[in-house]
Structure formats: C-alpha cells, structure tokens
C-alpha cells in the first residue's frame, strides 16, 4: 500500500530495538514488539503471497490466527517453518522470510497468468476437464502447482516439551470476558489456567477504546494479568488451545522463543472466551492487497504504530468501525465510511496488483489505497463444537451462537455473541462463578455490532471472493448450487470452501449466506459444517513432543550387554530387545557359531526368555486351562513343552513349563511375547478363577538366563561348580536342578532349542555377567540369535508367528494329541472342532528341501496350475543354509502338506516390488532335517 507507513510514536513496539530481517531476499527492519505482518506492513510490502489456485497477488488481510493470505516460509537459525502465519509470528532478528506458492517472488510470480484462464477452471474443474483419457496423465503437474509451502527434509527440530496440568478452571482467551472469568475463578479459590494466543493478555482491549474499573482497558488488562500471576494462576501467552476433547481435556500449544511446547490440560470447568472473528464484505476483487479487516487495521495502528493506508475507504455494516475512522483521521489519513446499513455499498475494487480505488453502488469512483472491511463478527465456537456443542443462528446478533449449555463448559463474551464490553465482562465473571453484581464495570456504551452478512445478488457482479485461501468465489458457489451440491457439507467438498489451513475462519459464514440467498433459505436452515481439532495447524513434531525415537519405543537391553560388547557382538533388535546377532566379523560368523554348537560347546544369552510364575493352590487348574498341552500331570521338578492357543484355536505361543512345586509353575514363553502372555494369563485368571487362590508374577527381568549347549556343554557346566549334581541320572533331559552361583540361587533346566545337550542356567540378573565370563573361561564359544534360528530350523522347531500365522492350529503342526484326548475345558477348545478346523486341506507344517543349492526365499509361494488358473497352496516360512548338513533347509505351511511327502513343489518369489523375483523347486519332507530320534540331546 502506497500509504502504509510507521508512525513516529505509539504502539507496543520498542523503537530503540530494531530487528533486521529479509523478505524474498530484500533486507528490511522492524522493531521489538512487531509481528512479522506488522513489520512487513511498516516496510511498505503489499504483496506477501500468491493465491492458491489463480496465483492472484495477495496482501496481509488480518491481524490474527484467521489470516488466509500471509503464510510465509520462515527460517531462523536452525528453525524452518514452511507455512508460518505472519500475523501471529513474533518478529525476531535475523529472520529470513519468503513468500510461498509463487513461482519466483510474490511480487512477480511467473504463474500469475493462470488468473487469465480463471473461467476455464471453475470449482471441481479437474474432475471434469482432466479425466480423459486418464487423470494420471495430469496428476503430477497439477499436484506440483498445488499445495502451500515446501518441507525441507534437512530441517530437524529438537524434542518439544510436553506438560500435563490439572486445574479447577481453564479459561481460553484473555480478552475482557476471559480476564473477568479468571479473576472470578481465582476469587472463589479455584486453581486457574488462562491461555491466550497473543503476546499479552487483553484481547480486544489492546486495540479498542474502552474503560474498565476506572482505567483504560489496556491498563486494566495488564493489571489483571499481574493480579492473576500473583494469585497463583498459570498465565500462558502465545498459547493456542487447539482442541477440546472428551471429559474436558484440552490441548494447548505454547510458542516459546525456542520452539513450541505442548500442554495437556484437564479442567473441572472450562470457560471459552475465545472472542469473535471479523467477517469480510462481499464485492468484486475483494481479494486485492489493500483490502483488510477493519479490526486488523485498527490493531496495526494502535499496537504497532503502523498506518496501513493514506486514503482509506471503510466498508462496514456495524458500529465497530467508528473508532477506526477517528483513529485513522488522527493519524493523518483521509477516511470515507461506506455504511451498508445506509444502502451504501462498495461494489468493486479497482487496481491490478493492489487497491487503487473503489467503485460504489451509485457508480461513483474513488481513489483509495486501503479498504477496511467489517461485515460483522463470527463468534469463534470451534472449541465449543469440538465438545459436540450445537450452534444456532441468531438473527438479532447476526451470528451463530451456542445453542446449549454443556456440562462443565461455558461460553462467554463475544464468543457467546456478547460483543459489548459490559456484557462480555459480566458474562465472563458469571461463567466462572463470580459474585453477582461484582463483575468489573465499564462506562463503555453499548453499540450496534450485529450485522447479518450482506448478500445482494445485484452487488455480486464480477469476481467476488468468499474463501481467500482456497480461492473460492461466489461463482463457484453458484455453480455448486446449480449442480445440486447445495447441502452444506457437499458444497464444502465440491468447492473446497473452508477447507484450507485457515479452515474458513473468515469465509464459512459468508459462504453459508451466499448459499442461503441462492436457495431462498434463512441463515441457519442449511446447517453448518463440522469443526474438528486443531483450531489452527499444529506441527506433528509438537504433538509428538517427547514421544519420538527411543523415547517412544525404548529398546530393551540385556543385563549382560557389556560382556557382549567386549566380545564384539553385532547387535540387532529382536522383538524390541537389543540382542547379539553374532560375534566378531560378519563373514562366516553364523556358520562358525552353528558348527561350534554341533561339535563343541556354545554359550548363548537367553535372558529375555519368559519366566512367568503361576503360584497358588489353583495354579495347576489355571495352567491346564491356559495350555493346550496338559500340565497338571507334570511331576515336581520336571519340564514339559506345550502350546497355548487363542480362543480362536490358533497357536498363541509355545514354551516350556517347569513345575517347581505342587502349587508353583514357571512358564518360559517366547522372548518377544512375554508381556502378551502375562496379560493373557492375567485376563483368564481374573475372568474365571478364584483370584485369591492363584497369582501371576512375571519375573523375566529379574533373571539372566545363560544357555550352555553342544556336545561339550556338560564339561563346561561341571566346571562352573554350581553345587548340584548334573549327572544325567539326576538331571536328565527335561529335568531341573537348583544350585548356587556366587552365593546366590541358580536354576538349571535341561531343555534344548538347538537339538543338542543343553543347559539353561538362570541366575539373578546382576550375576549374569559373571556367569557368562565363567562359561567363556571354561571354553564355551559365544553364539548369537542368528545361529540359534538356523539350529532350531535344522531341527524343525517352530517360532510362533514366523512358522505359524493367525490360522495355524496345533493339529496343523503335528500336535493333535490333546485335541483328540482332552475332555476338560481349555482356551480355544471349541474352535478346534469348527467346520474350518476340520477341513482336510488345511495348511500344515512341512520341511522343504530345495532341489538345487539355492536358499529358498522366505515368503515364496508354492503355485499349482490347473488350466489357466494358478493358485498358491502354501508358502515358505523359514529358510537358511544348514552348515551342519551342507544344503539349504526350510519350513513351510502347505495345504494338506503331510500327505504330500516326496512331492516336488514349484515355488515363486516375487521379490520386494514384484520385479525380478525367482523360481525354485523343492521337495516336501518331514519338518526335521537333523537327528530325528533326538539322540544328540543325550550325547
């Protein structure tokens, strides 16, 4: 705007503290206390961006969160914000700002020519024009032109802080109503939190006239803020309440100098004093830079000492603009007021890149460089709507206002349609339980604020913008109505009205008014669109707060980790636990460790293996119900392998159960499945057992389990001197012994997952390192998880979830016994006898032996063809090269697999992206490749 200047005095800014910044590369200066928008206005910048669709020049339109135009790319040191709202961003020294959505700079956008083709690209044009022969042909180019702002993949933001707070009263909005509410709440002894988006409390009092309690409103607000802080209230400025959730939970985001801070607040009572948003007026070219909301013009003038224009036309439909015209004249501007209530209308803005003049309804033309508009006020009821509040149109107030009072939630002040200062103060005071008649007083007279949107088709000639950010004009609404998209939710999606990042804060009500006038309906009859959180965009990083990376999914670690590191273990995450995959150099490591286990002795860290204790007189009853395999017949001091099922009959987990005593069992479930198994046990315990007679206790983390296995393992264990006989007579396979190590109890279980003689030795976690070191000194070689999974595959031992899926039942993997014999109840029992469970073509566990030396890809499908039809009859579940056997081995689930022994299957692997892939042939064999008799367990 030609006449946009900084005044010599006045405002909240500190003229002794200049701040340097750049806009589209041009160096500029503002002052401490400026927003980015006020500094740009003071620097005479009129075009700050280009419109979304037509690439029309756009200027600063508002002075708040409702801003549809001034979205800028901001860089400041490490910080990068691709769509910062200039109107709420506090200016800082060194900011580099760029316009977005312009090809080049905002002032000279190479795509500006698009506007000339506007008549060919109406609402929903791409559904109509770009469908032949295929939308895909056009999609990339259209997408490249759409969107606002560009993320910088290199930009990184640190962890955002997150606070939780529970209060008696949370007041959203620090204007007169909010301040009165907070003061009233504090006065009645409540804990109070008050939040406002602005840099200071006061709301409209910061820019408008108004006396409260005998002082200027601005001073009263400052005084109230001090009283609140002194009284112990939590006062948050630059803080937006972005969402209101169930049971009075609020999400707040506070902007700090270093970033953003998330507040999760739970309040007994909430007072929404969120104010109202001024509405634009509808006339042709009302999107030109230089058309601004009247309240914003007043705010920049009073708060930042910026007079946004020299020759000003005020287009208004209410009394709120009186003080603006007085203030502008006092600041040396020429002012003409065009009042719609007197049938004075602006019909058109003249000027190409900025306002140069206006045309009035009577045909008069006027020179102007600023048009300040006030088409009424829309209460900001977004949070009320989040709480499922319903709004109703008030003809008297010219606004949507809350229809119902919600539990624990009040709406006060302008947000409730109480636009006058006295009413706002009284409502806020009353909403928080203030004593009747004791509300802060004002001498401010009531005014006529109400103004229904002025929609006169006669004055809607030319291109009249309704939604500035998404470039929706009245013509688009006319088109949608003509094509029967006149339900409000349809209109919104057809035209994209209100769907931009400003969510239609300045456009929704005008859009409804245009639709109502086209349909010949009253305002409010057409309904309103639904507001959902967030009130304004909040970055994901802020919402994620501390819940990122390891803080979100902390990896669990082994008690023996330092010893593994000293052995040059290569770590990987297995089921959320960081475990050694192998030791030393990668080349040949897995084969080396496998061969050590088959010929000498290995030591393996099995600490994550489940150790869930089931204790009490009813322990045997519970475990029989939970396990598919009967466990109550187990003798004390003995171990048994078993399966657990889901109620659907699928295998839930497997593991070895140890019976320590008549009333005490320990369940060793899969390492990565311990919490789920514990929860499963606990659920059934509480559901159908006597909770005083059986208890579940997960002791997994209390013990380190060091497994020593291989033909040489007995000698290693003997040398550990655990104080208990380990002779096979005393400690046979699936036997158990207790001893001592380092003066503490130790449990020794003869159980094997590798098919060799094997000892699982559990010691209190703190002794794990010492036991590991002792086993190493005795000659056992370290073995990682990868070797273990090869060894168990050679034996055909399954890993639940890898070799089984959500449909695999026990009889599918060769465990039909309990299904046939048990008559008592156990989890999943009935599901094993459904039609589906009894099908003869169920997928069964088999071994697969490749016909050549290539390892079968896990996931490869066995394909059968009959005629043209090709069908998968199963797939590879685990696969590896066996170092002991010298050929590849694999397990798979194949339809009716046990009847296919000796059959050769054609396998196809499609690769990660269905490109390339490979074909294989494999023979169906029994799912055990080594030592079928189990002789090695005793060797």
């Amino acid at each position, binding site marked *: 705007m030609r006449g946009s200047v900084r005044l010599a005095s006045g405002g909240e800014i500190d003229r002794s503290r200049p701040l340097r910044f750049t806009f589209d590369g041009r160096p500029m200066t503002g002052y401490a206390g400026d927003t980015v928008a006020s500094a740009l206005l003071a620097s005479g910048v009129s075009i700050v961006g280009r419109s979304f669709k037509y690439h029309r020049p756009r200027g600063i339109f508002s002075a708040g969160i409702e801003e549809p135009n001034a979205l800028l790319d901001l860089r400041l040191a490490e910080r990068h914000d691709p769509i910062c709202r200039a109107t709420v961003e506090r200016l800082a020294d060194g900011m580099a700002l760029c316009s977005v959505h312009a090809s080049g700079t905002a002032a000279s956008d190479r795509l500006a020519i698009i506007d000339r083709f506007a008549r060919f690209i109406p609402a929903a044009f791409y559904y109509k024009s770009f469908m032949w022969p295929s939308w895909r042909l056009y999609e990339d180019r259209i997408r490249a032109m759409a969107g606002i702002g560009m993320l910088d993949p290199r930009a990184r933001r640190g962890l955002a802080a997150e606070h939780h707070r529970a209060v008696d009263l949370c007041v959203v909005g620090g204007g007169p109503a909010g301040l009165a509410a907070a003061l009233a709440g504090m006065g009645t002894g409540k804990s109070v939190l008050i939040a406002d988006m602005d840099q200071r409390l006061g709301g409209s009092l910061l820019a408008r006239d108004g006396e409260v309690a005998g002082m200027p409103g601005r001073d009263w607000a400052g005084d109230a803020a001090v009283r609140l802080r002194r009284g112990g209230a939590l006062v948050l400025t630059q803080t937006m309440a972005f969402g209101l*959730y*169930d*049971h009075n*939970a609020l999400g707040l985001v506070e902007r700090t100098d270093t970033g953003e801070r998330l507040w999760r607040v*739970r309040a007994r009572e909430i007072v929404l004093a969120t104010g109202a948003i001024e509405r634009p007026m509808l006339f042709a070219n009302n999107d030109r830079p230089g058309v601004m909301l009247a309240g914003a013009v007043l705010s920049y003038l009073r708060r930042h000492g910026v007079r946004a224009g020299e020759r000003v036309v005020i287009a208004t439909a209410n009394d709120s603009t009186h003080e603006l015209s007085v203030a502008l004249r006092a600041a040396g501007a020429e002012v003409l007021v065009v009042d719609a209530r007197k049938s004075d209308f602006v019909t058109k803005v003249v000027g190409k890149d900025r306002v140069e003049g206006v045309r009035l309804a009577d045909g008069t033309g006027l020179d102007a460089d600023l048009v300040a508009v006030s088409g009424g006020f829309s209460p900001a009821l977004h949070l009320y709507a989040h709480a*499922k509040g319903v709004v109703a149109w008030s003809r008297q107030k010219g606004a949507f206002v809350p229809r119902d009072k919600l*539990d624990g939630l009040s709406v006060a002040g302008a947000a409730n349609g109480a636009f006058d200062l006295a009413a706002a103060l009284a409502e806020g005071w009353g909403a928080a339980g203030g004593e009747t008649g004791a509300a802060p007083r004002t001498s401010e007279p009531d005014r006529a604020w109400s103004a229904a949107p002025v929609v006169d088709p006669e004055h809607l000639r030319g291109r009249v913008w309704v939604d500035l950010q998404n470039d929706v004009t009245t013509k688009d609404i006319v088109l949608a109505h003509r094509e029967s998209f006149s339900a409000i939710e349809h209109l919104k999606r057809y035209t994209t009205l209100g769907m931009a990042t400003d969510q239609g804060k300045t456009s929704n009500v005008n859009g409804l008014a245009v639709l109502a006038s086209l349909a010949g309906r009253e305002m409010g009859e057409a309904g309103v669109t639904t507001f959902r959180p967030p009130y304004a965009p909040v970055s994901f990083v802020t919402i994620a707060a501390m819940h990122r990376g390891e803080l979100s999914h902390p990896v669990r670690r082994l008690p023996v980790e330092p010893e593994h590191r000293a052995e040059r273990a290569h770590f990987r995450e297995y089921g959320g636990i960081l475990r050694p995959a192998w030791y030393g150099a990668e080349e040949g490591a897995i084969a080396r460790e496998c061969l050590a286990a088959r010929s000498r002795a290995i030591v393996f860290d099995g600490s994550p293996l489940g150790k869930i204790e089931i204790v009490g007189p009813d322990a045997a009853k519970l475990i029989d119900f939970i396990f598919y395999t009967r466990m109550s017949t187990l003798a004390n001091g003995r171990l048994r392998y078993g399966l657990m099922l889901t*109620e*659907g009959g699928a295998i839930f987990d497997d593991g070895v159960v140890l019976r320590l005593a008549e009333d005490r069992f320990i369940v060793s479930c899969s390492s990565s499945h311990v919490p789920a198994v514990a*929860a499963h046990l*606990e*659920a059934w315990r*509480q*559901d*159908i057992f006597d*909770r005083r007679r059986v208890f579940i206790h997960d002791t997994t983390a209390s013990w380190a389990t060091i497994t020593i296995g291989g033909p040489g393992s007995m000698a290693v264990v003997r040398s550990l001197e655990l104080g208990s006989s380990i002779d096979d007579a005393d400690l046979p396979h699936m036997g158990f012994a207790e001893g001592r190590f380092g003066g503490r109890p130790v449990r020794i279980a003869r159980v094997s997952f590798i098919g060799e003689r094997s000892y699982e030795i559990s010691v209190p976690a703190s002794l794990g390192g010492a036991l590991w070191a002792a086993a190493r000194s005795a000659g056992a070689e370290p073995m990682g998880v990868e070797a273990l999974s090869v060894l168990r595959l050679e034996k055909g031992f399954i890993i639940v979830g890898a070799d089984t899926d959500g449909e695999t039942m026990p009889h599918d993997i060769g465990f039909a016994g309990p299904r046939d014999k048990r*008559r008592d*109840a156990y989890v999943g*029992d*009935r*599901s094993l*006898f*459904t*039609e589906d469970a009894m099908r003869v073509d169920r997928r069964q566990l088999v071994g697969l032996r490749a016909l050549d030396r290539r390892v079968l890809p896990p996931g490869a499908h066995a394909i059968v063809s009959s005629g043209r039809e090709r069908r998968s009859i199963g797939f590879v579940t685990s696969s590896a090269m066996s170092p002991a056997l010298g050929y590849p081995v694999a397990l798979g689930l194949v339809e009716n697999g046990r009847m296919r022994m000796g059959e050769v299957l054609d396998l196809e692997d499609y690769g990660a992206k269905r490109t390339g892939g490979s074909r294989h042939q494999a023979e169906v064999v029994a799912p055990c490749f080594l030592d079928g008799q189990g002789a090695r367990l005793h060797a």
Partner: protein
Amino acid sequence: MQRFPCPHCGPRDEIEFHYAADAGKTRPGRQSSPEDWARYRFMRKNTKGTARELWQHAGGCGQWICIERDTVSHAVIGSEALGS
C-alpha cells in the same frame, strides 16, 4: 481423552486402559452350537447409548473392571471391580 474411574486407583486417563469385551458374556462349553460359539467369539453389541464394558487398567493396577458409560456422549455412569 476420556477419564475413567478405576475402582482401585481412582480417576485415570483412558490411555491407561485397554478395552476388553462387552460385559456379561459367558463362555460356552465344548458342546455349544457353532452359532453360540460364533456369537461369543465375534458378535459385539456395539451399543448406541448406555453400555457395560470390561476394560483392563493395563497401565495401572492391571485389574479388569466393568465400566458403564454412554457411547454417544461419552459420559461415564460408573465403574466396579470384577466379581464385586
């Protein structure tokens, strides 16, 4: 986020609880018809209005509790310990 009153721990945020099942279901025996078993396994009331549900206070005491609440307004009517 809803706030549930745990009968053992007091009011806690919804995030600490796991939904488990409709309250009042009984587990049919081995001899039950396929229809009864399917009803038990798969059918949910999906009540609009006042519902009685089992939740586990997984992030707290670990106890299963019965919560009565309105699935439309999310108003919590009450809660009780299992078997009480």
